[in-house]
């Protein structure tokens, strides 16, 4: 490895090498949030789910909302990483790893939400011993495990060359960790080929798995016969919403990392601008699907569906519903249509708004339907207690803590991919562009490309 080339990207190793005061402050604050969550959960484990605000008929509340929300955010990694890799979009290079880390960490937290929601978590083994595949929860279990493994491998494989860089350049206590995880990487052409082929296979595989994940999460609701849940649009609706919230979460992560670690050279306004346009497209898509769903319900005027409908539009849930519309449609539209100036600021603000709005959307799906049962039932309002707030805070805290630990241990921007972009990418793109034009030549063969790449990176 030539130190001269690393010198240009040495800034990417700074978060790993230097631990400033900000790190300890952040970890302390996160630790407090997690402690709140832990105390909340311990209370719940000890006394029962009665310490939450749940009751009959609203037996699902914050925990299931958080479950759907976190699993939704996990779609950040797939869209950006896999699709942009497959379409050979060069602007993905600084972003892919950030996105993949979000996916892996948030899947853990999301799956954990269901465990927290169980009345008898001590009987968890029953799912393994007596599981029924007819139940959508088992579809969730299978799909989410497949996605978790796929995205972990998909995060790990492109990480290997970077770990090798860390192994070779850093000494100290972590050398063992990096040596193990680098899997004997030395950058030979043979290894390059294996890695690239594996990444390509995974990039193709992970997209349908990701689509299936949020589809089966939606099936938890749409496979019941409850009003406003039993809707055929739920599968695509949830997937679109997941991609929407995923991009937003990614932009927020990018904005924070850029500011804290001064990565302005790597995360440039153009990256935010492109993602901002994608976010705008998803805003419109989300609005279209929401509109289609509510219009269908309204036009059909089925009495039970209309009860839920009006409870969302003008009834007890109107603040949450209209806040969701403002956060998911109005604010992003205003901010994202013109991104020539202040791209970073506008997209980050729009993304924060979308993250809040999408959480509200999940809430609006889960609670109003349960609050309006078919048979006359002594109804009550659902008010979450400190337990549920604590658990939510703790979950966010834990997710961010996992992320922070990852940034501390591994480069959050892919060093070898940036280098590859500099050295090989420009020529590749130029050649590819020429083949699109009427008098262009055939593209260079793949193994010549690999040879160039290997030469550039050793």
């Amino acid at each position: 490895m030539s130190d001269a080339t690393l010198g240009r990207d040495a800034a990417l190793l700074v978060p790993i090498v230097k631990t400033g005061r900000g790190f300890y402050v952040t970890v302390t604050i996160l630790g407090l949030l997690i402690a709140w969550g832990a105390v909340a959960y311990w209370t719940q484990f000890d006394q029962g789910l009665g310490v939450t605000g749940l009751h009959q008929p609203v037996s699902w509340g914050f925990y299931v909302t958080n479950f759907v929300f976190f699993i939704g955010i996990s779609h950040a990694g797939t869209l950006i990483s896999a699709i942009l890799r497959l379409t050979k979009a060069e602007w993905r290079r600084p972003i892919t790893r950030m996105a993949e880390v979000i996916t892996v960490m948030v899947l853990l937290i999301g799956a954990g939400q269901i465990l927290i929601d169980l009345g008898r978590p001590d009987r968890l083994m029953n799912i393994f011993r007596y599981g029924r595949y007819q139940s959508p929860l088992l579809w969730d279990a299978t799909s989410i495990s497949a996605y978790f493994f796929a995205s972990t491998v998909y995060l790990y494989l492109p990480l290997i060359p970077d770990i090798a860089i860390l192994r070779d350049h850093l000494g100290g206590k972590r050398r063992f960790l990096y040596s193990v995880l680098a899997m004997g990487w030395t950058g030979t052409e043979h290894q390059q080929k294996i890695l690239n082929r594996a990444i390509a296979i995974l990039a193709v595989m992970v997209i349908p798995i990701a689509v299936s994940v949020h589809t089966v999460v939606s099936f938890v609701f749409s496979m019941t016969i409850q009003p406003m849940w039993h809707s055929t649009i739920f599968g695509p609706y949830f997937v679109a919403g997941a991609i929407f919230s995923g991009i937003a979460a990614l932009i927020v992560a990018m904005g924070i990392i850029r500011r804290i670690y001064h990565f302005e050279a790597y995360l440039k306004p153009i990256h935010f601008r492109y993602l901002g346009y994608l976010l705008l497209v998803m805003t419109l898509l989300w609005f279209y699907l929401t509109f289609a769903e509510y219009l269908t319900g309204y036009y059909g005027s089925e009495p039970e569906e209309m009860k839920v409908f009006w409870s969302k539009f003008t009834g007890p849930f109107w603040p949450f519903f209209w806040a969701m519309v403002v956060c998911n449609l109005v604010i992003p539209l205003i901010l994202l249509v013109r991104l020539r100036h202040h791209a970073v600021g506008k997209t980050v603000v729009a993304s924060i708004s979308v993250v809040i709005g999408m959480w509200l959307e999940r809430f609006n799906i889960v609670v109003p339907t349960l609050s309006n049962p078919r048979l006359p039932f002594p109804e009550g309002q659902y008010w979450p207690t400190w337990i549920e707030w604590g658990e939510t805070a703790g979950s966010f805290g834990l997710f961010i803590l996992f992320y922070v630990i990852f940034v501390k241990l591994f480069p959050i921007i892919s060093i070898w991919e940036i280098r590859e972009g500099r050295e090989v990418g420009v020529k590749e793109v130029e050649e590819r562009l020429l083949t699109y034009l009427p008098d262009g030549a055939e593209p260079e063969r793949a193994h010549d490309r690999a040879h160039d790449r290997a030469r550039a990176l050793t």
Partner: protein
Amino acid sequence: MACKAENNVPAVGAREAARGRTISWMHVLVEESEERTRFLPCPCLQCDDPPCTKVCPVYATYRNPEGIVAQVYARCIGCRFCMAACPYNAKYFNWLTYQKDAPGQNPDVSVRPKGVVEKCTFCHHRLQKARERARAERRELVAGDYVPACAEACPTRAIAFGDLSDESSDVARLARSPRAFRLGEALGTKPKVIYLVETEAHRRV
């Protein structure tokens, strides 16, 4: 009350009841109109195509061969999916530990711990007792060998219980009456609790 006493249904207390957590396996729906007030006693409707059993992840609720939707308290992991799926809200959850084993409870019925879902089972323990008695007396089980606590206790004999699959039984005859209707019939759950309106003129679709 008879149901509560028979099945060890816990009294959750005033504070929990105010939070909407009363457990009453048999609850009575009150329908008020100009001409009259109607009471519909509503236990678990024991559907033939139950939406709750479809979604249970661990076989804790299932439809047994007698047609009763059974609930296995020892298996339930408390995910409450069946509660979310039941269109009649017939399933209840033990949000806290509402009762422990104590004298005065019905020894034939298990006391549910916290974190599990429970529901009306048409006094399945009585059915088991009747079956054992029949076997001891070396005879077949006949209609009338057992009734659930609610049917037994009803002072106006508004609740009739029997074998729906036996064409000659009272309940089968009443079920075929033009006055018969089921709750939520359009949902396709095929509930086995059948109500009779006063006259054919009051028939509901």
